């Protein structure tokens, strides 16, 4: 599903968890293109974990300042705690860049540290660690090991959300909307959509029983529609999407325990909006989100994930509506309207969301009265 692009050495991330530490194996080139993926995953591991985070650097071929930056940020966040970010077995080029930048304290100098990890998956069959192929997963590689996932908390969900949002932003050049579909009770449901048009695009696919989102979620590989006008597949859905102003779609599957469970869908009003880098980023973040969902399954159902997403999105919606009401009434800019909302919520001693909800309710009420009076 990935391996897109023309890099001599494909970027690769794998995570394994054990009781005492989390090991992140990084391979290939860590540069401005791949560092955000590494950073997002490091974020998730630092936030969720209760152990040291070990970056197994043996297979890094190149690392630039952007890679250093995300490692420094992760390390900085653990400062003051008993936990550490450790860079283990760095090759000379990585060791040198860490030393030059004063980050050599992160280097692990105990050559035995990774010995257990040096064993292949076969030798580690009895190990209690959970291994998740995070990025650049070659179809030939074993992807998800079974076994006890560490307990998952809401921060795991946060991490999944962050990855999805990071994706939306990382591809913002071409992306006009993003949605996440997950299988619940055997049916695909949209658990997050950037706006109503996008939610409708997903619904149109469920209604017609066809489309790239459904295909990605059932077949487990990505579907890319470069130009809807030239697309011959999905004759029921495509005309609806064109009518909705969509010109290209990229759907990337979310995979848990080797089974596709949903898809991350990126829509654009421009034809051929998604280049190889966009596809690579989509695969990167979708696969990471999948890995995190794998763990979240331990004690967090899809329903709960969906619930939290829905609440967050509906809160944003209500706030945006209230902002609109204030802008209409006071001729204020969006930011000024938000400041009014914030200020009045504080004066009333309630949250911004509660205040927004009251403003929207009042506006509806006034509107009804106004209509009745006419």
């Amino acid at each position, binding site marked *: 599903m990935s391996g897109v692009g023309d890099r001599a050495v494909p970027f690769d991330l794998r995570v394994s968890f054990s009781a005492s530490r989390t090991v992140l194996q990084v391979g290939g080139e860590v540069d401005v293109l791949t560092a*955000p993926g590494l*950073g*997002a995953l490091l*974020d*998730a591991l630092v*936030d969720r974990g209760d152990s040291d985070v070990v970056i197994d650097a043996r297979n890094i071929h190149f690392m630039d300042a952007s890679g250093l*930056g995300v490692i*420094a*940020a992760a*390390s*900085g*966040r653990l*400062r003051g705690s008993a936990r550490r970010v450790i860079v283990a077995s760095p090759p000379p080029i990585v060791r040198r860049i860490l030393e030059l930048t*004063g*980050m050599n304290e992160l280097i692990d100098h105990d050559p035995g540290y990774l010995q257990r990890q040096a064993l292949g998956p076969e030798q580690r069959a009895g190990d209690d660690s959970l291994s998740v192929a995070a990025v650049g997963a070659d179809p030939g590689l074993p992807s998800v090991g079974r076994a006890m996932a560490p307990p998952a908390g*809401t*921060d795991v969900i*946060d*991490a999944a*959300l*962050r990855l999805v*949002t*990071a994706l939306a*932003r*990382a591809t913002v050049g071409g992306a006009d909307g993003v949605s996440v579909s997950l299988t619940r009770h055997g049916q695909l449901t949209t658990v997050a959509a950037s706006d109503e048009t996008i939610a409708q695009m997903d619904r149109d696919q469920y209604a017609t029983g066809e489309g790239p989102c459904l295909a990605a979620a059932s077949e487990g590989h990505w579907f890319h529609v470069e130009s809807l006008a030239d697309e011959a597949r999905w004759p029921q859905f495509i005309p609806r999407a064109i009518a909705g102003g969509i010109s290209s779609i990229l759907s990337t599957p979310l995979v848990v325990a080797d089974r596709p469970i949903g898809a991350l869908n990126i829509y654009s009003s421009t034809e051929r909006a998604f280049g190889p880098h966009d596809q690579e980023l989509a695969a990167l973040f979708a696969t990471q989100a999948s890995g995190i969902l794998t763990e979240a399954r331990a004690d967090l159902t899809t329903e709960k994930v969906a619930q939290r997403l829905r*609440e*967050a999105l509906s*809160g*944003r919606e209500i*706030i*945006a509506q209230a*902002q609109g009401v204030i802008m209409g009434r006071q001729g204020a800019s969006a*930011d000024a309207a*938000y*400041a009014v909302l*914030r200020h009045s919520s*504080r004066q009333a*001693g309630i*949250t*911004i*969301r509660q205040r927004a909800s009251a403003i929207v309710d009042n506006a509806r009420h006034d509107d009804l009265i106004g209509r009745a009076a006419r």
Partner: protein
Amino acid sequence: MTPPTGVLEQGRLDVGLSHGELWFRYFELGGMSTALEVEAYLYAALDPTLHDRDLLAAALNERFSELGGDHPIPYSEDNEVDQHNA
């Protein structure tokens, strides 16, 4: 390696929110930046817009309220906000 702690990052530490949780609250209030960008704002590696900065202040202030406190993080309209300290 890390610049001096600013008002927002200090507030986050005071109320005990993880970066992820603060980002989520900021997102719920309508924020559009990614978690990585928000983190960069907190470490002063990126400059947030005034609106983003105020959203982060609001997310923290609502958390202070939940804990029984007032709204200690100033907003951009409060003149004492030092942009470089955000």
